[in-house]
C-alpha cells in the first residue's frame, strides 16, 4: 500500500510539473516544473529499486541538464513581449487533444495488456554493479560505439561554436 501512495504522489508531481513546463508564462516557474519532472522520474526509478538509474538520473538530468538549460534560458533572457503572438490558441488546443486522444487510448490498452507479462527481476538487478557488469560484457560493443557518437557530437559542437573564428582565418 505505501508503494501505491508514493507512486500516486510521484505521478501527480510528474503531471503537474510537465503541465507547468508547458503552461506557465514565467521562465522561472517553467524551470522549477522541469526540475520537478526530472526528480519525479528519479523517484519512480527509486521506487522500482533501480538504484543506478536513480542516481544517474539525478547526476545527469538534474545536475547537468537542468543547470545547462538554466544557463541557456538565463543567457537568452526572453521578455514576455518578445513571445510570438498565439492566435487561435483555443482551436489548436482542442484540435490537438482530439487528434491525440486515439493514441492515448491505444497506449492505455497496450499498457493494460502487457502489465503482468514482464518477467520477475532477480535480486541485485539494477544496482550499479549489475548494470556495470552487463554493460561491459554483453553490451560492450554498442557501449563503445555510443561513445564514438558522443565524440562526434562534441566535435560538431566545437566546430559550430568556432564558426566565426574559422571565417576570420580564411578571409
Amino acid at each position, binding site marked *: 500500500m505505501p508503494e501505491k501512495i508514493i507512486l500516486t504522489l510521484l505521478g501527480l508531481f510528474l503531471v503537474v510539473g510537465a503541465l507547468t513546463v508547458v503552461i506557465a508564462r*514565467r521562465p*522561472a*516557474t517553467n*524551470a*522549477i516544473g522541469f*526540475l520537478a519532472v526530472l526528480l519525479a522520474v528519479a523517484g519512480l526509478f527509486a521506487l522500482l529499486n533501480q*538504484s*543506478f538509474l536513480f*542516481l544517474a538520473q*539525478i*547526476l545527469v538530468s*538534474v*545536475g*547537468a541538464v*537542468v*543547470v*545547462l538549460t*538554466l*544557463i541557456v*534560458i*538565463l543567457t537568452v533572457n526572453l521578455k514576455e513581449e518578445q513571445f510570438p503572438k498565439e492566435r487561435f490558441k483555443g482551436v489548436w488546443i482542442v484540435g490537438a487533444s482530439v487528434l491525440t486522444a486515439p493514441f492515448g487510448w491505444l497506449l492505455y490498452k497496450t499498457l493494460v495488456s502487457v502489465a503482468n507479462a514482464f518477467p520477475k527481476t532477480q535480486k541485485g538487478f539494477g*544496482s*550499479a554493479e549489475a548494470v556495470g557488469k552487463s554493460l561491459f560484457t554483453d553490451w560492450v560493443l554498442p557501449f563503445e560505439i555510443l561513445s564514438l557518437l558522443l565524440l562526434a557530437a562534441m566535435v560538431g559542437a566545437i566546430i559550430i561554436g568556432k564558426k566565426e573564428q574559422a571565417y576570420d582565418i580564411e578571409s
Partner: protein
Amino acid sequence: MSTLSIVVTLATIVLAALLALLMIPVLVWLERRVCGLIQDRLGPNRTNLFGFRLGGVVQSFADVIKLVVKEEYYPSHIGKGRWLFVLAPMITFASALLAFMVIPFADDLVLYGERMKIQALPVEYGILWYLAIGSVGVIGMVFGGWMSHNKYSLLGALRSASQMVSYELALGLGVISMILTYGTIDFNAMVHWQSGTVLGFLPAWGALVQPLAAIVVIVALFVETNRAPFSVAEGESEIVAGFMTEYTAMKFAMYFMGEYVAMNTASAVIVTMFFGGYQLPWLSTETLTAHFSAVAWTIVVALPLFVWFFIRWMKKNNTVRPTVSTDWGRHFETKVLSVVLIAMTVVIDLILIYISTLPEGSAATTVAVTLLQIAVFVMKLMAFNIFFIVVRWTLPRFRYDQVQTLGWRYLLPLSLLNIFVTAIVVVGVLS
C-alpha cells in the same frame, strides 16, 4: 526490524542531523576566531549568556537572533513568484544536508547477531549519492541569482555554475581512480580497505596510496563548496555579493548555512575517502574489539592528562588584560567549566574501567568501540574543517580565468593520467 535496530537507526539519524546542523554555529565561530588568529587579533569573544562565553561560541547564537528578527525584504519585481525566490536557497541547503547523510560514522555495529550500519541513509552507493546530490546545490545558486534580476547576481550565478561544471569533471575522474583502487563505491567498504598498511608501516590511507588523486579531489571539493580561494561566485570586490546580493535575513542565512554544511560534507568525504574515515591508524575494528581493554586503559590514563593541560591553558588564557581590575565573571566561568570537565573525565574513566573488566567481545565492548570510532571521526572532521578555514584565510581569491585554467589545463589532464596509471597498476600489476 527489531526494537534494537530501530533504536540504533534513529540514533544514527539524530547523530547525523546534529553533526550537520549543530556544526554550523561552531564553524561560523571557528571561522571568525581562526581568521582573527591568522590576522593577529582576537575575533568575537565578548558575547555571553550569564557570564558564560565558551570562548565566544555564544556570538553565533546572537547572530542567529539577529538574522531571524531582521527585516524581510523582497525586490519589487518579485511579486507573485515569492515562493520561488525563497525556494532557491532551500534547494542549496537541502542538497548539502542530504549529501552528508551517507557518511559512515563508525563501522557496522554487530549486536546479538544483527548487523546495523552507523550511517543515516544505509545505502551501498555512497560516493555516487554524494556526487549526484552534491551537484544539485548549484541549481539553487543559479535560480537565486537569476530570479534576483540583478546584473551582479546574474554574473555570480553564471560564475558559480560554470565553475561547478568545469570542476565536476576533475572531481568525477579523481573519484573514478579511487573507485578503481578500492574496487567499491560503498563508503564503508572504502574505509575498510584503508585499515591495512602500505609498505609495511604506513597506514593504507587513500592520501598515501593515491596522493595525486587526493590533491585533485580535495581541490575540486573546495570548488564544490564555493569557498575561497574559489569564491569568484561571490567576489565582493567585483560583484557585491554575487548570487546572494538580493537576499536578506533568513533567506541569506539559508545560503550562508548551506555553505557551511557543504563544507562540513566535503570534509567528511575527504576524511572518508582519503584519511581512513572513522579508523584510528593501524587499529582496525577487529583489533580494537579484540584488545579493547588495552585501548580503554590508554584512554583512562591519557584523558585526565589532556584535561589537566586543557584546564591549565584555560586558567592562563581566560582572563582580561592584567591592567583591568574587573574580570567580568571569567574566573567564575573557568571554575565551573573545570568542575564540569573533571566530572566528565571521572565518569568516562569509571565507565571505561568497568568495561575493561568485562570479557572481550561483549556487547558493551562493541558499543564502546563504535562510540570511540564516532569520536575519532568527529575529530578528523573538525581537523579538516579547520583546514578549510585556514586555506580560506591564507590564499587570496583566484581570478576567474585562473580558476578555469587550473580546472581545465591542470586538474583534468592530471586526473586522466592518474586513471591510466591506476588502471595499469590495478589490472596489470596487482592481478
